[in-house]
């Protein structure tokens, strides 16, 4: 590597000198220790010996020019060395360029006489090597930085603080429900604002909720959206990870008040279900209308086409698809069933979209994903989507979007032997249809004969705050009519 020619120490407490006379020109050969230039100070004139043998390839200072101790004033390329002109810059040896430029406006380069000729390094306190520890007065020949912190105090007053950064790109796959640890600071804020951690997307390690996540919500004025009992909850928290969420048995027998008891830690999903159930029951005025439907024609239709359907579309032709179709038609005719009522009971929010929730039973508990825009989907598509949602629900692959935005729910309690039940409304909806076991039963037909028909009981649970009995009865009756006459449904698709 070519060798730099450096201004040596010029004496105690001497920081600069003047180039006196150059003995060599660029291109001249030099021998090691041969004097190549003199430097003058108040006290002395000093010869600078060459630090190497070779050719002088750079000269950075002219005769009469003021230079500082340790300044690079020339470059010598030794035999066999290549030197690219301009590759070594003049300046102070040992001063290293700092990394990417940073805002140093609070510290300005000072104008000292000795620094006048120096090029300021790109911010930062320059690193220096003190070769001669005996001359401490010459400790630093570099730039002097002037500091002034008052600008921060002004800034704070003006509240010009920069906005908080957006959440980091890939923290962890998990929403607030997966956060296993709420730090003390976060807990305080959650209590203070009555927030529901399950609603908050955490951006911290492992998906945990950080203080800034809550601060962002507060600053955006969205506290209400995230409170316990807010109208847009997830019916159940998403559980995208595949780890076990089965309640752990603690296995500790404790002595309860009346005998031995076992305490079982419940998974978060259970808590959410419990919260929702309680909320729904405490808010909606649950009332039930039960009617029976003769599904003989529908059953026959399904029997006739189910194999071909399965072969052609790769999915089962399910009754649920028909129930959805019937319900959607009924919701269009009875719009107050596809709605919510405000907490102060002053307004109904009639939804113009039809997102039908399907209750699915999983190992972890009940989840209700919804099919978006069910009014625009065919029986085929509905069958497919129902199957897919159920599958994803069982594999814990549901997303928050699957669980939010529903307008009406259907719960299929058939297949387990239930004749009739009284389902819980999926808050903040105002109605839910319970469909039960389709069973062959003896009924009396129009002509007075006893015949065997495929019968089913349909329960419409409705929120009497918004919907009165007659409306609900007519709604239910309309669904019955659709299902009893599937070809009529076809005409209205």
């Amino acid at each position, binding site marked *: 590597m070519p060798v730099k020619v450096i201004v040596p120490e010029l004496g105690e*407490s001497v920081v600069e000198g003047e180039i006196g006379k150059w003995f060599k020109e660029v291109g001249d050969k030099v021998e090691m220790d041969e004097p190549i230039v003199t430097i003058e100070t108040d006290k002395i004139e000093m010869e600078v010996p060459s630090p190497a043998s070779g050719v002088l390839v750079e000269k950075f200072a002219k005769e009469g020019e003021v230079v500082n101790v340790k300044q690079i004033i020339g470059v010598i390329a030794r035999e066999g060395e290549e030197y690219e002109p301009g590759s070594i810059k003049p300046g102070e040896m*040992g001063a290293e360029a*700092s*990394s*990417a430029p*940073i*805002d*140093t406006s*609070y*510290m300005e380069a*000072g104008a000292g006489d000795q620094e006048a000729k120096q090029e300021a390094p790109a*911010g*930062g*306190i*320059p*690193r*220096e*090597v*003190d*070769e001669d*520890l005996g001359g*401490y*007065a010459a*400790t*630093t020949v*570099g*730039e*002097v*930085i*002037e*500091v*002034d*912190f008052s600008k*921060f*105090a002004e*800034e*704070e007053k003006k509240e010009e*603080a*920069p*906005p*908080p*950064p*957006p959440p*980091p790109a890939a*923290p962890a796959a998990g929403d607030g429900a997966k956060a296993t640890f709420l*730090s*003390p*600071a*976060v807990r*305080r804020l959650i209590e203070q604002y009555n927030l529901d951690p399950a609603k908050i997307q955490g*951006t*911290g*390690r492992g998906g945990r909720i*950080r*203080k*800034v996540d809550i601060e962002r919500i507060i600053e955006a004025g969205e506290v209400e959206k995230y409170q316990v009992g807010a109208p847009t909850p997830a019916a159940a928290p998403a559980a995208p990870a595949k780890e076990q969420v089965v309640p752990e048995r603690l296995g500790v027998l404790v002595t309860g008040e009346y005998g031995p008891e076992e305490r079982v830690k419940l998974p978060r999903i259970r808590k959410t279900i419990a919260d929702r159930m309680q909320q729904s029951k405490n808010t909606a005025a649950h009332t039930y209308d039960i009617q029976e439907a003769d599904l003989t024609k529908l059953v026959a239709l399904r029997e006739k086409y189910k194999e071909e359907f399965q072969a052609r579309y790769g999915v089962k032709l399910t009754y649920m698809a028909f129930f959805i179709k019937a319900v959607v038609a009924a919701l269009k005719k009875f719009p107050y069933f596809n709605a919510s009522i405000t907490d102060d009971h002053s307004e109904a929010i009639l939804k113009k979209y039809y997102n039908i929730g399907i209750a699915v039973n999983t190992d972890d508990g009940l989840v209700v994903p919804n099919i978006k825009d069910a009014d625009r989907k065919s029986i085929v598509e509905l069958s497919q989507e129902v199957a897919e949602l159920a599958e994803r629900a069982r594999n814990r692959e549901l997303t928050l979007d699957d669980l939010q935005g529903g307008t009406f729910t259907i719960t299929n309690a058939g297949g387990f032997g239930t004749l009739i039940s009284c389902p819980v409304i999926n808050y903040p909806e105002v109605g839910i249809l319970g469909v039960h076991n389709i069973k062959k039963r003896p009924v009396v037909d129009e002509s007075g004969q006893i015949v065997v028909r495929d019968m089913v009981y349909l329960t419409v649970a409705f929120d009497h705050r918004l919907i009165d009995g007659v409306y609900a009865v007519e709604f239910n009756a309309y669904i019955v009519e659709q299902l009893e006459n599937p070809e009529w449904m076809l005409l209205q698709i």
Partner: protein
Amino acid sequence: MGMRKITYIDAIIEAQREEMQRDENVFVLGEDVGLYGGVFKATKGLMDEFGFYRCLDTPISESAIVGIATGAALMGMRPIAEIQFADFIGGAHDQICQQAAKIYYRTGGTWPVPITIRCPYGGDVGGGMYHSQSNEAWYCHVAGLKVVVPSTPYDAKGLLKAAIRDNNPVLYFEHKKLYRTIKEPVPDDDFVVPIGKADVKKPGRHLSIFSFGLMFHRSMQAAMKLREEGIDVEVVDLRTLLPLDMETIVESVKKTGKAMVVHEAPKYGGIGGEIASAIVEECWDYLDGPVVRVAAPDTPVPFHPKMEQLYLPSVERIYQEAKQLFEY
């Protein structure tokens, strides 16, 4: 009263000169402080102005320097003892810890020891293991002492005056790298920076960094870098290490929820440990992450420039640790 921009070392000279003018009991002693004006020139001009007996050149004996100072203090004087490099303070250890720190207590409060011990400390000057140490933690552990560390010229002048006027033995650690590399507007007349009070030099909302000396400036630079990414760091200049200003520290952590201490002394047993523990004890309900210390490894200060750069916490390292803590 006028403000002019002066360097850290000029502030130190000015403080000593003004105190010596104000109170004839104040005098300076140490190695090379008189005739030579100090190896760093921190006592330049004092002997010329105040004479031989108020700017004493001592033998090379730290034990004698502090011992003489203690004796003089007991007789009513206010000595400023210079330990040429903080690394050499070992010889004076007994005088500081057994005598100066304890006489007031031992005499039931009747014999105060108003000495100031100035110690140039710190690295980044290529001084190697015997000229670069940051050993303030040793003295933070001795009841009866006070320990101050200014980071800026204003604080350097104000704290030195406060130390001289304080009736207790005060260790005043001045960072040799900062002597001539920092300039700031400083009043040209009398003012004092109270001992035991930290200074929030850059308020912020997301994370608190507590630091002093050269590391304070590196923390500031890291904070400015983080600022561009929207991470608003509060940088607190501790100024006094003993007694620690817990009030300011707690207030800061309560606000941000995240705390970091940056010092250039080695990590284990450093003052960072004390501060971190105190923060956890007093701010637990407000913490949003672990309390982190950024410090040097537990080795002597290396001599080779590249090694020293790795050794001292760099701006980049402080930046990375703060960012990680913010994202925790």
